[in-house]
């Protein structure tokens, strides 16, 4: 959004290009200061937390000011003086559940215009059978030319595509244009000034909310789809039609004092809904904890109708009071699952998991976070998966996130609100249906390098595994592969040979979609993997992962937690030099940064030379 009085918002264009799930979004806003005095113009954009900013520029009266991505520490040092004098501010702020806010303001002269352009990239994740591209639009005033345009290119073919928005009224609905033809889709939404108005005579705008594009692709090949482009490959794996693995799940529920009231009520409701979705072949158990640890039953129970009914009654009896002993509770759950596996009271090919729900920090028993992580990791020993749900804002989310990742799972924050039950259920739906376990991807060692994560504990129904890598020879057009996994009935082995496709044939009338997207996708995934490693790896691994992630972030111009984007604003009388910083926020920190100093240099050379001419 761009706002301020006597500022006319002339143009807002959001252009998304999605190629093989990799989304490249460019947001452009053009505003005119119609006042006779200079005014400050604000440019606020909310972008997905999973996206990396790759570019930002401001064009003022023909001069362009471009953001430069730098190593965070280097930028910080360079601009230390300005930070201490309070001249700079963070450009990116956390904004709700899924989004973060990029925000910049600049003073522009009377009767001048300004164009802001922000570019970011993200890999769309498949959840519950669909990819979702989300665009948040809040222009705050009517826009002369407003346009959302999205082009989706999927070589596998698009099975369905829906476009909708939280702000789309019945009047605006016909303006959402959608064309889907086999491998590509085009979506546009471009209301006129009058169509944006809340009412015929008012200036309020209807355009305020989220615009979604959901779609899925064909999955004809069991082994997935491999795309080879210019020395890089990406393997998308999401085979359909596998029976679900029976699961053995222990719910570890925090009943410490801080859970009392709404949170506990929502936990009851959430658990009851989840219980209804267990199948008869599943096994389950409950461990509850505050300062002490209690189990509903000492061992796992089959999910018969009667047992589920009893479990529901038990859930109702959980009440909150006391301290928080996460360590002993999780270890207890691990023991329950291990006992069941050892005694073979659960099926051999089944998925074992622990779902921990807590709202606080450990303060009873073992309270050292690292010791708990070590204890849990050692106890689990890769035999089961740990999922963590952090309830509310006080929770030590990073602790849960690392602990989950160390045990092949993932963490999710549950936001306090009326929909907390829906959030709990949504998370459970995502992880509850395991189709395959121990999914491993192999490619010939002498053909590939720099592979992203290739071993996965499980494949969830409706999700997708993505592996990418570099080919040793960028002339290569073929790649043999092998995928092994365990399904409910047998061990599976998919063996095949992928061949590079000709993009000109797949998308004949399209200029090559956007440059080297496979390479960018690989870089994006590799950085995400490395950031995970920084969190959960050994000290040596952390150092190496930090170096590698930083190198890639700088090379690809990604604003990641290791880099900052430095934006130099035009000079004004009040601010002879003004610089702002865009950071990628981590869960735990926000960074503020820097401002520069000049250097002079004088050198004279007279010398013999070697010289060359080349092109890269």
């Amino acid at each position, binding site marked *: 959004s761009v706002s301020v009085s006597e500022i006319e918002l002339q143009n807002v264009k959001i252009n998304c290009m999605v190629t093989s799930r990799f989304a490249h979004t460019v947001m452009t806003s053009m505003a005119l200061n119609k006042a006779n005095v200079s005014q400050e113009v604000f440019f606020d954009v909310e972008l997905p937390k999973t996206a990396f900013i790759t570019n930002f520029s401001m064009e003022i009266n023909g001069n362009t000011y471009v953001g430069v991505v730098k190593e965070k520490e280097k930028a910080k040092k360079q601009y230390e003086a300005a930070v201490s004098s309070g001249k700079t501010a963070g450009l990116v702020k956390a904004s709700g559940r899924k989004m973060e806010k990029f925000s910049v303001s600049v003073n522009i002269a009377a009767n001048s215009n300004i164009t802001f352009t922000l570019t970011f990239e993200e890999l769309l994740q498949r959840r519950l059978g669909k990819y979702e591209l989300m665009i948040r639009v809040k222009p705050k005033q009517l826009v002369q030319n407003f346009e959302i345009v999205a082009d989706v290119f999927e070589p596998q073919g698009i099975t369905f595509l829906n476009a909708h928005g939280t702000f789309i009224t019945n009047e605006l609905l016909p303006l959402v244009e959608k064309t889907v033809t086999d491998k590509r889709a085009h979506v546009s939404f471009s209301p006129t000034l009058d169509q944006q108005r809340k009412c015929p005579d008012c200036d309020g705008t209807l355009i305020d909310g989220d615009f979604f594009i959901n779609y899925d692709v064909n999955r004809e090949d069991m082994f997935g789809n491999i795309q080879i*482009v210019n020395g890089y490959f990406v393997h998308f794996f999401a085979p359909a039609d596998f029976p679900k693995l029976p699961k053995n799940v222990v719910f570890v529920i925090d009943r410490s004092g801080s859970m009392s009231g709404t949170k506990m009520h929502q936990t009851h409701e959430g658990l009851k809904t989840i219980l209804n979705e267990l199948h008869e072949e599943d096994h389950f158990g409950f461990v509850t904890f505050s300062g002490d640890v209690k189990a509903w039953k000492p061992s796992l129970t089959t999910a018969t109708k009667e047992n589920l009914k009893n479990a529901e009654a038990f859930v109702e009896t959980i009440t909150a009071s006391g301290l928080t002993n996460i360590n002993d509770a999780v270890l207890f759950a691990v023991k329950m699952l291990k006992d069941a596996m050892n005694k073979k009271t659960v099926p051999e090919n089944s998925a074992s998991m622990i779902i921990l729900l807590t709202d606080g920090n450990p303060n009873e028993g073992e309270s050292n976070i690292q010791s708990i992580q070590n204890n849990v990791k050692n106890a689990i020993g890769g035999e089961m998966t740990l999922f963590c749900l952090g309830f509310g804002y006080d929770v030590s989310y990073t602790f849960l996130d690392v602990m989950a990742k160390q045990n092949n799972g993932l963490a999710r924050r549950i936001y306090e609100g009326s929909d907390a039950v829906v959030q709990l259920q949504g998370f459970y739906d995502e992880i509850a249906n395991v189709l395959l376990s121990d999914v491993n991807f192999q490619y010939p060692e002498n053909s590939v390098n720099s592979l992203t994560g290739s071993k996965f504990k499980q494949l969830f129904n409706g999700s997708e595994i993505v592996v990418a890598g570099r080919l040793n020879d960028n002339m290569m057009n073929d790649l043999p592969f092998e995928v092994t996994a365990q399904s409910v009935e047998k061990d599976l082995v998919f063996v095949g040979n992928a061949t590079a496709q000709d993009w000109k044939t797949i998308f004949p009338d399209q200029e090559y979609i*956007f440059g080297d997207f496979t390479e960018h996708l690989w870089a994006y995934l590799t950085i995400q993997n490395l950031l995970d490693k920084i969190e959960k790896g050994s000290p040596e691994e952390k150092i190496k992962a930090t170096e590698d992630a930083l190198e890639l972030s700088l090379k690809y111009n990604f604003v990641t937690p290791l880099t900052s984007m430095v934006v130099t604003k035009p000079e004004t009388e009040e601010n002879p030099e003004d610089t702002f910083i865009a950071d990628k926020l981590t869960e735990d920190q926000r960074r503020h940064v820097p401002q520069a100093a000049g250097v002079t240099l004088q050198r004279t050379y*007279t*010398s013999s*030379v070697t010289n060359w001419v080349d092109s890269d």
Partner: protein
Amino acid sequence: PHFIIEFADQNDALCFNINDKPGTIFNLIKDPLIGIIVNGQTIGDKKIDPENTMNTYFGSFGIVHAKFGIRLVVTTQDILVSEKGKQSKLFWSDNISIKGSNMDLHVAKDRSLTVTLRNSVKFVIVLHKVWKKHPYHQDFLGFYTLDSHLFSQRVHGLLGQFFHGITFEVSDMFKGKDPDKPDATMFVKGHNLTVTRGWQKDFRKDLKKGENVPCWFVHKNGTGLIDGEIEDYIVSGLF
């Protein structure tokens, strides 16, 4: 194409780009005394990347040593050698070394061609292979002078004019458009030029990534640094 003039002793370099229409042939080296000419013809991209402007690269080189009766045509496909009327063709897919009385050639498979002309010059032509299915880019060549001290004082050309060194002075570094690349004033050949600190790549050792060579970039096709204008270096044929 990028041009880089390296001052090894000072660990510094000058660089500039020459942009013109694809197909243009530039004279890179011309030494009338020892009879050597090196010309290069540019090629463009297969099509223009929507996010970038048209780039040009060298797609072929013509090299003549008049006194030895040697002519070489190096393209991204092959290498044509002609010596006193005898012709032979080498391929980039070969790994081959040829020692002659006046010229040694060494082809490193799919990488480079090293040419040593007796008592005059040694240079390397690097082959940059691009993925065949790449929608924009195509194979191109790089030319590196390895030994130029035997050229006469009359040597000229886009590269040749720098073989016996130049005098330049860099002063008054100031903040440029890009905060990472400061500008400065360079006094060279009687001109005061605004130059930008940047880097270019030397691909001799690492063909894929290249090695960064920090350099002072002279804008506008090297105007002020090169003698005359780029039109002065355009020739009608490879020989």
